[in-house]
């Protein structure tokens, strides 16, 4: 343990080099831009810039690339709050309360809360990496297919019955998502499913296309119907908004801690930042006393998913370094970079490449502090965007959405798909079907199905494998409780109510 601190101190000396600090600022700015543009995700950004870093030392290079990653994590929140378009998968849950806040003219508060919670989440995750890295790596190894499925199961369950709409509508929406997720190659049998001989459908429906369409285009259609009135233009540009919001945040300490734990856990296992953000939002809604108001612009509804997403995004780097398994697509690209620099991620990296590992960990601390300062100074700037008349901003959003959809696979067909999803999103919203379960199912449906079938393969078809050890049983049990919670609480209140008041 003490060794860790000595190493970390040494790491700070490496990361604190002025050139490296400059790289951090550059990386964060690039990352924010990448995060803002939907479609051009962190993974793409890192992949594009990877070759540029070969002339640097491995430590400087990974500092630059990981800062792009932090920047993208920060930046994903911006479009979610302002335009209801999640720039990254993990910011979908941020739109639920972030965008209503922007519509009420509180965009500055929402952005500050999002950025600050991101920072808190990341910081806790780094602390965890510093203190318990080897332990955590060992924990991650215990996750086989059954455990992974249990985690996805928990993520889905914490959604059913949680939304304002009746549970049946949530389930319908989720099932549409599962059906869309099933299109493409079936991983377990190696056969094509539901492609109807069409080459365009080989790759299935990309989550980003669906989200850009459902949220982005759907939102524009709704706003147009309401007479091009873009609520939120009353946003006041005020530098003090940051301080005012900060003063209110400590009230949500319980939500923060809970989200940090969920985030770290999801990042390590490696389920990733997306389920972490959904789960944290779902549970916060259950547990918080403001829960009823979630979805109408509750600041706690921004704090919960952002904290968890960032904690997960950061801790996802741990399995990559310690086990060689990337916890996120961006981590996968970073992993490729490590190999080119001659660093072999795996159990020996922490022993053989101390300078590099601790330099990286120290740069996580510094990078996130730098990141927070950079993004907070941009809050008033971004909030000001909402003052531009909607008739000007709408075409710009449309074009950005189209470019984003095209960038995902360099495919014009995806732009058409995005428009179709836009209409679908509009129809679902008008008929009060919640969009979030649909999105969750598209993102996780494939992985959940894969984990489920891998588990059954290894157990020879017995469902008992999901109750075969304490770890998996506990997670499954939590899932069932989450799914049945509305019924349980209903029952409890009925038991209580017969007594005369």
């Amino acid at each position, binding site marked *: 343990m003490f060794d860790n601190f000595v190493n970390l101190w040494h790491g700070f000396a490496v990361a604190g080099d002025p050139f490296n600090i400059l790289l951090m600022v550059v990386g964060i700015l690039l990352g924010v831009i990448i995060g803002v543009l939907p479609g051009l995700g962190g993974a793409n950004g890192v992949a594009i810039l990877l070759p540029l870093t070969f002339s640097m030392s491995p430590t400087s290079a990974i500092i630059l690339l990981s800062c792009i990653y932090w920047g993208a994590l920060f930046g994903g929140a911006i479009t979610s709050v302002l335009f209801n378009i999640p720039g990254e998968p993990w910011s979908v849950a941020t739109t639920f309360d972030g965008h209503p806040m922007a519509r009420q003219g509180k965009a500055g508060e929402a952005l500050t809360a999002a950025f600050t919670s991101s920072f808190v989440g990341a910081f806790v995750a780094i602390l965890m990496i510093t203190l318990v890295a080897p332990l955590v790596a060992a924990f991650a*190894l215990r996750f086989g297919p059954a455990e992974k499925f249990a985690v996805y199961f928990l993520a889905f369950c914490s959604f059913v019955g949680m939304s304002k709409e009746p549970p049946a509508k949530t389930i319908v929406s989720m099932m549409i998502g599962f059906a869309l997720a099933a299109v493409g190659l079936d991983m377990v049998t190696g056969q094509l499913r539901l492609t109807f001989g069409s080459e365009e459908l080989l790759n299935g429906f990309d989550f980003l296309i669906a989200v850009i369409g459902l949220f982005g285009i759907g939102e524009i259609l709704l706003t147009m119907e309401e007479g091009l009135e873009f609520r939120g233009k009353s946003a006041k540009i005020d530098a003090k908004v940051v301080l005012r919001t900060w003063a209110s945040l400590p009230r949500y300490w319980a939500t923060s801690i809970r989200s940090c734990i969920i985030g770290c856990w999801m990042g390590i296992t490696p389920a990733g930042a997306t389920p972490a953000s959904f789960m944290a939002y779902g549970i916060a809604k259950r547990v918080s006393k403001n829960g009823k108001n979630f979805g109408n612009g509750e600041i706690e509804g921004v704090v919960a998913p952002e904290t968890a997403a960032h904690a997960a995004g950061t801790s996802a780097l741990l399995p990559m370094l310690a086990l060689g398994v990337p916890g996120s697509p961006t981590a996968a690209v970073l992993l490729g970079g490590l190999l080119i620099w001659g660093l072999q991620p795996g159990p020996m990296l922490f022993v053989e490449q101390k300078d590099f590992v601790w330099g990286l960990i120290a740069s996580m601390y510094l990078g996130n502090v730098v990141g927070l300062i950079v993004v907070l100074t941009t809050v008033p700037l971004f909030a000001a965007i909402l003052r531009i008349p909607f008739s000007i901003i709408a075409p710009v959003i449309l074009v950005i959405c189209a470019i984003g959809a095209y960038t995902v696979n360099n495919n014009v067909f995806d732009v058409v798909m995005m428009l179709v999803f836009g209409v679908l999103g509009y129809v679902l919203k008008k008929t009060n079907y919640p969009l979030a379960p649909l999105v969750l199912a598209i993102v996780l449906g494939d992985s959940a199905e894969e984990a489920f079938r891998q588990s059954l393969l290894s157990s*020879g078809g017995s469902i008992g494998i999901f109750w075969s050890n304490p770890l998996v049983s506990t997670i499954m049990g939590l899932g069932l409780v989450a799914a049945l919670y509305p019924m349980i609480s209903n029952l409890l209140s009925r038991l209580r109510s017969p007594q005369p008041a």
Partner: protein
Amino acid sequence: MKNFHALGLGTLTALGLAAMSILPAAAEWKPTKPVEFIVPAGTGGGADQMARTLQGIIAKHELMPTQLIVINKSGGAGGEGFLDVKNSKANPHKIVITLSNLFTTPLATGIPFNWKDMTPVAMLALDEFVLWVNAQDPYKTAQEYEAAIKAAPDGTFKMGGTGSKQEDQIITVAIEKALGKKMTYIPYKGGGEVAVQLVGGHVNSTVNNPIEAVSQWRGDKVRPLCVFDQKQLPYTDKILGDLSWSSIPTCKSAGLDVEYLMLRGIFMPPGVSDEQVAYFVDLFKKVRETPEWQQLMKDGAFNQTFMAGAEFKDWLTKAETTHKGLMQEAGFIAAAN
């Protein structure tokens, strides 16, 4: 920051222009815009790692006047990437790296393409396969492991591998045939994940490529039993204790008569000129001489056979027949074929 970026781009353009003006007028063909490098697999896998290393080497040593851009098109077991190349007729600014899915995907899924729909450029290397078990398991040799599989009922031993009806499962079926026992094959998305599932004890063995499992071996988490090649690997650098790649026996010598090597080759779209193909053959010859490439070959214990032209085409024809035979025996051919 934007200025900084623009400055960089400007410099690049200027360099590019300068490079072009130096060229004699009647020079052979050279790329005039960025070249797309299609990877018909996801990020982080063996093919992707090799493509990104190539991109790095070419950029670092300035082997090409324009940029090389890696694009992953993994849909339909790589079919998406291969169809893209097949449909980009006569476009010399596109190349694709192959895995065994060049042969297996059209056979298993019926997606309409064949290596003959593209222009073969060169074989860069062949990837080896090694039989791995968890280091905590008692099996020290392939013979001991084989005996354990034979002694247990069908399906007791679990083999983890990448994808379904692709190279890992083909090898698994060949092992089953050789031993006369069934194993349970569990497909995962990528080689790195497979290696970790083995370390975590969720499967009994894997047939990971060397580069996918080497770090776990160095950490003494997994143990190599035998290599699916005719002869032992030539690399003698120590990896764990006194062990090196060269100390792994061949599977054949251990009584498991299974051999399999995977192509890492480069193809171009159909209809490109001989001059254009020659440019890329020459480019990859230069890449092979760089120290970074040598290091990659050593780390991944690759078989460094290089082929181009007619020799490469002959090899491909033979490999296709072999795969058809293997897939047929295993019952992996799609109904449409």
